[in-house]
């Protein structure tokens, strides 16, 4: 799976020949045994780690993030629930892996959310890794941070000023925003020459039908009747009716929404069973009612990750993770203003916090 040990490192992903095992081992070592410095072995110095509060570079930044979390939740335990991977391709391409995790712990220390509350919280997430020569060279962390805030009893309204002031949260400028251009009626490419149906092409096509073509009736085709979705923000949904309403609600809030699948791979378990992992983006205009206040008219991008269990061409269980807090921050922070000659730089109108539903 991996092309040999990289340099002088004692540990690397793929060392055991089983990438899933090595990822579990890494997470256990770093988070639970607190050998955090091992990230110097696992994370390349120029690795870019995409988080909802901005990109981090290299192991030191990642190690600092781990300690910030560990300090707030000293008894924290992290569990890896599943690892889905894309096999090694070439020395240049390396391989990819996506792992679903959760941690829980008591907030008995100071954290980025404030002083200790003593409360027990749980967070879940999906991390996608791009691995070359046994090292992580790029990572995308989708974390459901709203359950942390909820668990701590902090209202999102009180958190917003903190999010704005938090110097770790770099909210990028949002003054260059284009219309949404998407091949609405054009189907994603399906390899028709392939006799065996391609799991990825089929998933892309059917998600395109539901989300972009707004054919919500096809939800009943893609999802098994008893399908369970573990949604972000701790939203548990089951059955076609609830799954459909999830989609309806999001389409009401972002009426021109488009879904793009940015990466997709899967593990074939045999007997028409697959475990699929995807990274996705949604772009849309905040033009409708919904739990995030507004409408603000902002055109935003939400990035997230999903794991799916597929049996006989239908999704039987699904985990969806994206960061609602980051969405809130981006919907309601003031825009960057470079109009220096107006003399009031940085004082653009502030979003109305009072309309945000906690």
């Amino acid at each position, binding site marked *: 799976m991996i092309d040999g040990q*990289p*340099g*002088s*490192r004692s540990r690397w992903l793929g060392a055991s020949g089983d990438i899933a095992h090595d990822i579990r081992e890494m997470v256990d070592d770093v988070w639970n045994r607190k050998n955090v410095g091992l990230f110097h072995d696992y994370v*390349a*110095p*120029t690795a*870019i780690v995409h988080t909802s509060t*901005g*990109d*981090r*570079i*290299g192991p030191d*930044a990642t190690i600092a993030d781990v300690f910030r979390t560990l300090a707030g939740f000293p008894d924290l335990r992290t569990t890896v629930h599943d690892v889905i991977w894309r096999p090694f391709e*070439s*020395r*240049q*391409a390396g391989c990819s892996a996506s792992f679903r995790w959760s941690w829980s712990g008591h907030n008995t220390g100071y954290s980025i959310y404030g002083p200790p509350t003593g409360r027990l919280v749980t967070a879940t997430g999906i991390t996608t890794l791009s691995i*070359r*020569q046994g*090292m992580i*060279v790029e990572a995308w962390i989708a974390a459901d941070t709203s359950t942390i805030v909820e668990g701590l009893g902090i209202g999102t309204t009180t958190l917003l000023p903190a999010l704005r002031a938090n*110097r*770790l949260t*770099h909210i*990028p*400028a*949002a*003054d*260059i*925003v*284009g*219309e*949404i*251009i*998407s*091949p609405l009626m054009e189907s994603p490419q399906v390899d028709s020459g392939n006799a065996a149906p391609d799991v990825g092409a089929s998933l892309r096509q059917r998600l395109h039908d539901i989300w972009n073509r707004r054919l919500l009736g096809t939800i009943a085709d893609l999802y098994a009747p008893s399908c369970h979705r573990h949604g972000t923000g701790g939203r548990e949904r089951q059955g076609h009716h609830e799954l459909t309403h999830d989609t309806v609600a999001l389409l009401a809030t972002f009426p021109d929404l*488009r879904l*793009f*699948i*940015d990466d997709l791979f899967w593990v074939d378990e045999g007997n028409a069973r697959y475990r699929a992992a995807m990274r996705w*983006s949604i*772009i849309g205009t905040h033009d409708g009612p919904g739990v995030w206040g507004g409408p603000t008219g902002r055109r935003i*991008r939400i990035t997230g990750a999903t794991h799916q269990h597929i049996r006989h061409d239908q999704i039987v269980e699904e985990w969806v993770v994206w960061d609602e807090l980051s969405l809130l921050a981006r919907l309601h922070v003031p825009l*960057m203003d*470079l*109009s*220096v*000659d*107006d*003399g009031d*730089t*940085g004082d653009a109108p502030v979003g109305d916090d009072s309309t945000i539903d906690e």
Partner: protein
Amino acid sequence: MAETNDVVENERQVATRKPDAPATNGRTDEATPTELDFRASRIDFLDYEAGAGGERRQSLRGFEDHYTDIIDYIVRCTHRMWEEGGVGLLYEYYSHNAVVWSDWGQSYGRDQTIEYVVQRMAGFPNLRIYANDVIWAGDDVQGFRTCHRITQTGHNWGYSKYGPPTNRPTQSTCFANCVMRENRIYEEWLVVDEMTVVRQLGLDPDAVLRGIAGGVLPPNIDIVGESVKARGQGRPDTYVPRNPDQPDVEDFLRSNLHELWNWRMLNRISDLYAPNCVIHAPSGRELYGLGDAKALVVALMASFPDARFEVDDLYWNGDERMGYRTAVRWSLTGTHRGVGIWGKPTGRPVHIIGTTSHIIRDGKIVEEWTLFNELALLWKLHYA
């Protein structure tokens, strides 16, 4: 219509033109060997150090013996000068008359560059310069060209050009494009995302710009020609493909960028970009999709209505299977006559230098880093 429109004629051809020809890399007819590709070579800086003094991977006439290839030279000489503090190594790695161009003006000779490095170190004592990519072309006879995409981090513990210490952490992107021969860089184009740094420091760009002493040389704004997009009453040039019979990365980019910018054919966006492309734009803007890609171009065109876009240098590494990674050094000239992001129209003529690196897969740009120095642009428009 008496006249046929070359651009419209080109529409059909462009649609079928895909950059999947063997990379010629502007050098020989051979593709860059994979082991000399940044993405395939050493991942960890320790691997570069461990390989120092090893067998040469390519001909490096006149370079110090311990450098094995041009990527190794860029990565380790940067580390030795900046992180290890060997600033005086600039006397070895830059020629006596080296020119460094930026949007603040021109820096001439080694000593000015040494002063620049020391001033950066004073403001950001724990400065780190990470190589995200090194794209290169050329050879040791005609000279190497390198495009070094950098992420810089550092705390503002000291006094800097932005003012007194703020103690804030910063992280920003930077492009250093160098031309070198026999161990020495003789010309460099430096594009730094200073607006991101100013924002991360929590400073007001207006206050910073009022306090900035300016560039090394004041820009000449008293003698200016018009921005020539077309000759006289004619129309913009027609791009002549260098390789009309087969797909070619250079033709793909040059023809589409020329027609997009200088013909104002905004529909070239969908020829250039994949629908879910990611564009890392200046000031930390993360753009996504065809609409955002178009909005970035329109924002510049609207502010500089007579803008002319010029590709100054272009080369690439990679292959069809892994994707091509390009280095495009460009300049944009125009008059600040329109409303937009950069304030009320000032009527000032400007010359912006920028660098873009694309990742091209299946004939479309899937990811891009585009940089020009917005802080310097604002300074030139409103404060110079």
